[in-house]
């Protein structure tokens, strides 16, 4: 059971009772500043974490109690001392000069009512407490108790570098207990198949003219051991749709392709094929590619959704009901016959949204397409008739991202109303609401076992939610800007995240720790993807580059003993340069989407911007 920080209604009202004389606030703050700067080196970094939340809360308190001139001089005196990664917040804060400005700004209200979490070692905390409880410093102590939550851990105080890696979110860091719940990060068992051998596969091998032996091969890619993986969720933890025949055929195709897959590594980098959207004056805002890389969809700012066929096979829609009654239903190629040749084209345009389309997602069986838009709806389109089937209304504000579950049927959406919603295609209302973020939910992704959902938000945190009961099981802080890219590793154990700060952070889901930091990009990262077997992580960014990182090396040698699990942080090595396998520049085309084909060819997509 995870303890969620629930704000009390009465706390909201009394959040900013007058704490002492407003004219003395500057004295209080500078007094504390002096104390911290004179403390021992080892404690200084940790205690410096107090500056920012204290500054903001004191400033907001002055504004709320309508001491405008004191607030202004307080701000001017101390805002330059804050860390550089808080500059954006401070700029917004500088425009908040009157109490009326605070109403209606949900993010600021949430900041006021939720406690900013600081993680400090016990020694540093004792030092601080002793100092503040002296009589003349009582006011600051009251403020600290009112607005901050100090999560104490036993161990060595952290260095500035360690702290800098993990702070940055609107609510401080995550409490250690928020990351203690058990997470089933293992994969679900794949059903066993008999893979029938194809004549085509054998032609190359039996050139000597020996008679081909046709033996059905058993699938031994997935289930080597019959035992249940202790980290995997039970098969029926959440209801999943059963496999249809077409799904089984698809899986067989997948396994055949997997056999031909290129093994990637530092010695064998993938080829990258870039799909550039030329003349996209409509403003390309979202891209998705099907799992078998046969179709690509683009969502545009003019509210259209365009689907292209990437293979020579054109897109066809189904015949009308009158024609369908004439075809022979028992023939083998009935799935071909139901398609109307007259409608074959490479491009299909789907009209329906009334605002820019910010997210698109193909269903795993390629029958449906989801698109979410600024108009607050998520639309389900059929890829057999190329018409809109359902409009899911729930978010009344722009929806920033949506994704189908890896098994189909469920999908998740996240938007400006700061929640993510779990839907099923046959329910017009959401099944789960994931509330907890302090700002917009900008990115939503399913875990490969479909039991968990990761959401990245503009409050600079990533939360992992349990689909079964809606609980938040992990909170990851460390990014210094809104998160725009999330990727789970194929084995389900790790999560990679990218944000506007240009860093890719790697997280161990089981332990709830940050295990890697990849520096290199200079602008927002919009695309992240692991290769099919998890050996390479590809990242695409607004700085017009695609970078490849060595994922195997990044995740090995993790010192995750009990000590680090208790304290919640490990020493991150500065090995970004070692892990970087290649940087590939595009011709002024920001990279919006990345996709590894079943054979580990990397596809990338973006719109050419002539600058």
């Amino acid at each position: 059971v995870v303890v969620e920080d629930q704000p009390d209604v009465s706390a909201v009202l009394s959040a900013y009772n007058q704490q002492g004389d407003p004219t003395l606030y500057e004295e209080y703050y500078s007094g504390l500043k002096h104390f911290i700067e004179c403390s021992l080196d080892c404690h200084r970094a940790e205690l410096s974490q107090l500056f920012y939340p204290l500054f903001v809360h004191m400033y907001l308190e002055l504004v709320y109690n309508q001491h405008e001139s004191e607030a202004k001089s307080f701000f001017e005196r101390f805002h330059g001392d804050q860390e550089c990664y808080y500059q954006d917040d401070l700029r917004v804060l500088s425009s908040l000069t009157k109490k009326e400005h605070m109403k209606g700004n949900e993010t600021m209200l949430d900041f006021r009512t939720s406690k900013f979490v600081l993680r400090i070692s016990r020694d540093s905390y004792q030092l601080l407490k002793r100092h503040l409880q002296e009589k003349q410093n009582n006011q600051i102590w009251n403020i600290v108790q009112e607005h901050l939550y100090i999560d104490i851990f036993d161990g060595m105080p952290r260095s500035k570098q360690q702290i800098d890696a993990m702070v940055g979110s609107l609510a401080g860091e995550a409490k250690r207990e928020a990351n203690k719940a058990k997470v089933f990060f293992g994969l679900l068992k794949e059903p066993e198949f008999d893979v029938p051998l194809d004549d085509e596969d054998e032609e190359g091998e039996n050139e000597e003219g020996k008679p081909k032996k046709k033996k059905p091969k058993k699938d031994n890619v997935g289930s080597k051991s019959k035992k249940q993986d202790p980290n995997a969720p039970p098969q029926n933890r959440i209801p999943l749709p059963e496999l249809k025949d077409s799904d089984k055929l698809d899986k067989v195709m997948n396994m055949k392709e997997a056999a031909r897959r290129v093994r990637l590594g530092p010695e064998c980098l993938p080829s990258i094929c870039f799909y550039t959207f030329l003349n996209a004056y409509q403003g390309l805002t979202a891209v998705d590619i099907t799992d078998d890389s046969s179709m690509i969809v683009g969502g545009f700012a003019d509210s259209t959704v365009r689907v292209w066929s990437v293979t020579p096979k054109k897109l066809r829609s189904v015949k009308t009901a009158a024609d369908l009654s004439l075809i022979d239903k028992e023939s083998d190629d009935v799935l071909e016959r139901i398609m109307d040749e007259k409608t074959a084209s490479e491009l299909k345009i789907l009209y329906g949204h009334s605002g820019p389309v910010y997210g698109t997602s193909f269903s795993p069986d390629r029958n449906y397409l989801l698109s979410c838009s600024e108009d607050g709806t998520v639309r389900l389109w059929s890829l057999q008739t190329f018409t809109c089937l359902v409009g899911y209304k729930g978010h009344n504000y722009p929806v920033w991202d949506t994704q189908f579950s890896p098994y189909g049927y469920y999908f998740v959406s996240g938007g400006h109303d700061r929640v993510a919603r779990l839907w099923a295609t046959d329910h017009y209302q959401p099944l789960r609401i994931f509330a907890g973020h302090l700002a917009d939910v900008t990115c939503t992704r399913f875990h490969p076992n479909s039991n968990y959902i990761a959401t990245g938000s503009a409050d600079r945190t990533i939360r992992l939610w349990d689909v079964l009961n809606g609980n938040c099981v992990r909170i990851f802080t460390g990014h210094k800007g809104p998160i725009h890219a999330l990727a789970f590793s194929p084995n389900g154990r790790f999560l990679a995240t990218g944000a506007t700060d240009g860093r890719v952070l790697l997280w161990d889901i089981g332990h709830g720790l940050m295990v890697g930091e990849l520096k290199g990009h200079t602008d927002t990262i919009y695309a992240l993807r692991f290769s099919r077997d998890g050996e390479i992580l590809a990242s695409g960014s607004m700085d017009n580059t695609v970078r490849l990182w060595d994922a195997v090396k990044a995740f090995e040698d993790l010192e995750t003993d009990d000590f680090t699990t208790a304290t919640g942080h490990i020493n991150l090595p500065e090995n970004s340069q070692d892990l970087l396998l290649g940087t590939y520049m595009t011709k002024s085309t920001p990279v919006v989407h990345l996709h590894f084909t079943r054979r580990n060819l990397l596809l990338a997509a973006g719109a050419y911007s002539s600058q």
Partner: protein
Amino acid sequence: MEAAKMASPKSAPKDAQVMAQILKDMGITEYEPRVINQMLEFAYRYVTTILEDAKIYSSHAKKSSVDADDVRLAIQCRTDQSFTSPPPRDFLLDIARQKNQTPLPLIKPYSGPRLPPDRYCLTAPNYRLKALQKKVSSTAGRITVPRLSVGAVSSRPSTPTLGTPSAQTVSVSAKVGAPVSLAGQRFTVQIPSSQPPGKSATPTTPTVQNVLINPSLISPKNILITTNMVAQGTASDPNPLKRKHEDEDDYDTL
């Protein structure tokens, strides 16, 4: 996006310069030049609306001039109307807790495309073909198309694909009032419209509706099928059309 060009002081009007400075203070460095015009337009329109509203409020309060309170009231009313913000956090946490308590629904196997009930889909035709036959002028006492009202029916989503569904036709006489127990079968209900003798009216097409009745959704095992016979009168003309329209939205019409 083109980089911002600072307009030369000679050519740009003062408020454009102020707007550019505001954008710079808020940290926005790259924007198309027309953004300044759009922002100025918005600011002008907003202030005008507020002041007009304030004038109305002050004249309502019979004051001689507009004062700060009127403006404050005008701003507050406009904010609630146009600039809505997402719900507060505690409200969201509350509804989330409620929603997340219900267990995930089980998935029915083999049910074709999994879509919500037709009423919530966009698959229904948004046009209706006008009947070619002339409607005969009404006289009192003539019975026209009776409507079938059935309680608590779930409709099967219409699929635009293969084959015609084979229905077991059971004709239910129009006078049924006694409860009929159904066991989840699909019925084709044909309700012949009874014509008064002597009138050479062209027969109105009987409404055929395929209705799947799912007993699990209905607590009593029996369903009461009643048909409403409505006497045709000119006054009641709008009503039958209205009822009919509503029914067609909910159920499949094949």
